């Protein structure tokens, strides 16, 4: 008898739990899941946006596998992400070490100041840097020729290395504050008793940081890496507003999201654009899995 009563209590509690989480899942299903499934459906069709939807089977995917521009855009995106992420993580680790282990006056101000670039709209930033560098009479050319570093105006946006590096720089500038804040938050979760033990054992500050703090905040680093990969591989707004949204010069800053946007909304190939986005999803999933297993493997080896 008592057991039955216990079971009834348990069942009724779970039911309310489901009610509480239902709103999210309903909204997710309508606004995220359905469009994603429809995109996958579209990837097997050919559609120009205004005409009829025609099924083409796997032809789009065959085209995708042979599409050099797609692979180039993947490489561009990955390269720009890498050049942004590594400096970002290093900066964040160094800055958070400085902030946590030294008493810096005005630390709160610095932390807020570093975070500020994250709040600016990426499209405005792209436009800003375009105005700074584009053309013979641009601000940068003016300054550099006046102070004598350059003899004549340099066509900044004709250089693929420069354009790609600039996008990475902008991304670093916008996100390093956020990464620093998250790492600092992760460091506060480490039990301070461990530091006392390390000090007793005679560890230096650097050794403490590298051998104790970093491994202890591994979950934070995993979170940062995976969200950075996912966001970074979807990069669109900064390169699109920086030059002419075709990835010029010579497609060096054509990201995959830009490529699929152009295919869909400029060339009216909605079916193929959906295929590109499905391909991008697969790539991001693979990269995230690799990243996760790499960071976790280290953990297992450490133990």
């Amino acid at each position, binding site marked *: 008898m008592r057991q039955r009563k216990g079971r009834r209590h348990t069942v009724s509690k779970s039911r309310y739990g489901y009610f509480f989480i239902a709103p999210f899942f309903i909204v*997710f299903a309508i606004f*995220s*899941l359905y*469009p*994603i499934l429809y995109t996958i459906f579209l990837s097997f069709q050919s559609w120009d*946006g*205004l*005409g009829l939807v025609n099924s083409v089977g796997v032809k789009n995917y065959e*085209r995708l596998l042979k*599409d*050099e*521009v797609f692979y180039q855009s993947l490489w561009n995106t990955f390269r720009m992400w890498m050049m942004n992420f590594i400096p970002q993580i290093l900066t964040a680790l160094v800055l958070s070490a400085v902030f946590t282990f030294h008493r810096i006056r005005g630390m709160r101000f610095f932390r807020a100041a570093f975070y500020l670039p994250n709040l600016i709209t*990426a*499209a405005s930033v*792209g436009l800003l840097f375009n*105005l700074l560098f*584009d*053309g*013979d*009479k*641009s601000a940068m050319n003016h300054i550099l020729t006046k102070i004598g570093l350059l003899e004549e*105006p340099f*066509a900044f946006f*004709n250089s693929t290395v420069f354009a790609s590096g600039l996008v990475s720089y902008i991304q670093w500038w916008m996100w390093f504050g*956020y990464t620093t804040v998250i790492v600092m938050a992760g460091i506060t979760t480490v039990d301070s008793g461990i530091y006392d033990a390390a000090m007793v054992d005679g560890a230096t500050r650097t050794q403490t940081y590298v051998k104790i703090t970093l491994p202890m905040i591994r979950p934070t680093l995993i979170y940062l890496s*995976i*969200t950075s990969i*996912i*966001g*970074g591989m*979807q*990069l*669109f*707004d*900064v390169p*699109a*507003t920086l030059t*002419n949204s*075709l990835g*010029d*010069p*010579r497609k060096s800053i054509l990201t995959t*999201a*830009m490529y*699929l*946007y*152009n*295919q869909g*909304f*400029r*060339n*009216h*190939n909605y079916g*193929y654009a959906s295929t590109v986005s499905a391909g991008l*999803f697969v790539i*991001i*999933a693979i990269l*995230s*899995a690799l990243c*996760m297993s790499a960071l976790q493997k280290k953990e297992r080896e450490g133990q």
Partner: protein
Amino acid sequence: MKKRMIALLMMSALVLGTGGCGGTGETPESASPERGSDSSADRQTEADPENTGEGETEADRSALSGTLEVWSSGEELGRFVEGFQAAYPDVTVNITVVPNEDFVAKLTPTLAGGQGAPDVFTGESDYVKYLVESGFWDDLEGAPYHADTSDMWEYVASVGRDSGGTLRALSWQASPGSVMYRRDMARDVLGTDDPEKVAEMINSDEAMLDVAARLKEKGIKMFASWQDILNMQFSNRSNPWVADNRLVIDESMLSFMDMAKTITENGYDLGVDPWAPEWSAAVESDDTFCYVLPSWGYQFVVKPSADTTKGEWAMCQGAVPYVKGGTWVGIYKDSPNKDLAWAFMEYCCLNSEAQKAYGAEYGEYVSLKSADKALAEQNGEEVLGGQNPFAFYNSQMEKLPADLMTAYDGTINNAFLSAAKDYATGVKSKEEALDAFKADVANAYPEITVE
């Protein structure tokens, strides 16, 4: 094993979740904000206050009432609104200006979905053929419109026809082109500023480059951007970009690439892209000689910026007469307000008085022959030192070649300019640039055959 499966599932959920919502990363949404969608009130105060529309009867005006939704990719259509509302006091016109880059992206889903589509919408020359063929614009020669295009310049109406010959769009403007040059620099270097004589000096590509060299000696760059010249060369072709579903690269395009290279190597232009701030600001500069732009170029680039250079500009013919660009407008086929829409379209595109007033105020070349002829009789423009642009354009319209526009023009032009730029700046050889161009076109439109 089970833990791994759960971890994998959670990771997919994470990827789907942050991928779909764009969590902490950047999202692939359209980045450009709709700068133009201010309230239509701003636009109405700009429109010309002169009286228009003597053609309509009183009965028409009082019978029509309601609200009309108009989407425009530029500001010009909004300038007709005030005059239209004076003629039709019970009709409210809501104009939404969507920037041209986003126009198709915004329009296509609404047309395909059928929800929230405007009653009237425009189409710029880059993609007007695409919209005309799509069938979402109503047939304007059928009932109840019965459009009469006899007073309209032929090419304007022909662009608005689809491949079956049905008239689907009209325009309030025609866009013949010219070379707009600075009189003071012409007097200084060429010895004359008379449009006829200057036209003789630049009546071919070689002649233009000779003049460019002479200007360079005096430290003046002839062109604001060599990419402007594509506007003119566009009409110099004997074939459109796509014929019988295959890509055709006309001879004139190849020689244009060489011209671009010569200009870049010798520094005959500013080294910027059109519509960059520096390019627009060159109107007032003291080292840029000319713009090669169609009629809207005068209206949007030269006239608004000309301040100290008022009276120092003039128009003449370049190597060839040409027409480029323009915006067409049509009525959405499922619109519930077709009578209102037609009243508006008729006012903008077929009403000679309204166009005359519009052209006089804004200096834009309009699409009705009668209006243009009347405007040619009036005074010249102050910015042009008294030259009457309408008279000039009228003479150009006689000499125009047939229209060679296709639905693919927008993307193909961009790809071609990109390839030409690589060749002009010396990054690629001509064959490499052309191969890259062909690959781009094949990539964008796999249905076109590209050799």
